[in-house]
């Protein structure tokens, strides 16, 4: 984590282009049929539990088994690989890009993700804090809980199989929690953001600065 954050540069970047560009990849091999075109507005999954799928982006068919894939985030389809329409694609092929308008809170989180140590989800599953960590969070609040390598910090739950998740990042305080109990997290997505105690003031500075700068825009 760098102490030399170039605030002006970062903020200028977000001012001139306050969007995230989210690439959408083929989830599996199969024949792809697009359901949107360049410029289409798409919605993120909705409903109280995120159970209503996002706008259908493409259908992918393998072995006569069609699967509709929805948008993971809201925005505008800014680029689409129209040349792939009706073609067989490999899993992981980039199919389109969604331009997602960022809110202030998302910009703060994006900047923090550049300075925090992000501990990723080892598998697509649901996660909850280990009982010891949860009781410390309940007593002191999440930003007072320090984790160090080797600590059992989370439990990963998939089909009633619970797997302890051992922390393997730098020692520090849990600053951000990116998962909600009961909501699935994709493999590789961050679960928690950790920063060392001596860098907490820097994090606060980021938040204060972004809030102030953004309000003045």
């Amino acid at each position, binding site marked *: 984590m760098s102490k030399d954050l170039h605030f002006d540069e970062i903020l200028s970047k977000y001012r001139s282009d306050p969007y995230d560009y989210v690439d959408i990849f083929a989830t599996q091999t199969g024949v792809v049929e697009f359901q949107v075109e360049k410029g289409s507005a798409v919605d993120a999954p909705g*409903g109280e539990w995120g*159970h*209503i799928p996002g706008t259908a982006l493409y259908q992918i068919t393998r072995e006569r088994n069609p699967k509709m894939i929805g948008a993971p985030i809201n925005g505008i389809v800014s680029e689409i690989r129209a040349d792939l329409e009706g073609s067989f694609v490999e899993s992981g092929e980039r199919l389109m890009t969604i331009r997602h308008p960022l809110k202030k809170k998302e910009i703060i989180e994006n900047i923090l993700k550049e300075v925090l140590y992000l501990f990723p989800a080892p598998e697509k599953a649901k996660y909850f804090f280990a009982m010891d960590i949860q009781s410390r969070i309940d007593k002191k609040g999440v930003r007072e809980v320090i984790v160090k390598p080797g600590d059992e910090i989370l439990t990963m739950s998939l089909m*009633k199989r*619970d797997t302890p998740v051992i922390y393997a990042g730098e020692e520090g305080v849990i600053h951000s929690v990116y998962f909600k109990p*009961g909501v699935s997290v994709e493999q590789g997505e961050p679960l928690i953001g950790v920063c060392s105690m001596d860098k907490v003031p820097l994090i606060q500075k980021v938040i204060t600065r972004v809030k102030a700068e953004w309000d003045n825009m």
Partner: protein
Amino acid sequence: MTNRLNVQGLRNYITEREIPLRKRDYAGLDVEIIFRKGGFIGSNIECFSELDRTMHYGRSVINQFERLGDSVVSGSVIIAERLSGSKGRFTRSWYAPSGGLWGSIIYVNTLLPASKLLIPLALGVSCCEALHEWGAAEAEVRWINDVLFHEQKLAGFLLESHRGVESTEEYILIGFGINLNNTTFPSELKKIAVSLSEIIGDTIERDDFALCFLAKLAFNFGLICHEEDYYLVHQQYQGVGGTHLLVNRWRELSQSIGRDVVFGFDVVTRPQYRAKVMGIAEDGGLMMQLEDGSTTIEYSGEIRYL
């Protein structure tokens, strides 16, 4: 420990009882091959009069093998007459006095991720099949693998997995608790738990029931392995219309489908939403329709019938 509940006793049981039964029910399948694939279940059987938790003991066995650089015997079964520190999922209590079948199985995973998802189903199916054979014909499995009799809990399972520090093998510890002759429950469990002896009005020979359960588990684990092999060759499962044989069996034994339920990751303390169960996917996911008409598939969590 009696003479029956041991490795040879289980092999004899499978040969004499379970293989003929399965040949009758699965006429188109090579049942012996399937049993060979699931034959690691009960490769080693240890019985104790009392343990804290069989899961703890299983973990200590794994750690011991890891330290020595030896391979853990996959399918090892640990059974205790009673448990002094048993617990359910989350912070729930599980009462394990003498009379029940309490134990764990150590499984060293060799399955692909899609097949691994189905291990919990194999437990519920095997237990339900054993209970039917012992007279509880109305026992059913509620997603994922709670075994109920008239909506009272007869059996429950825990699965915990971790990687070996030295070997990096993936170990799955499978805990099982089946209420057989234990007929008194603490007040908080009285209304929601029941034992097999209460249902059939007779005493259960624990070791005989254990052999029956383990034999069925060997078959159902074998089915998972068999279907994985079949899928890799044919790109579909061997059941009717390409469906998974174990998942089909689960469907036969469950009354979850079509029921109105409340769903939650921890449904007791944090119920999340109401829905109707529409079915179970080939990968074991629970397909539900919510009150607003939208549909979802869940892979973690639990349901309670409304």
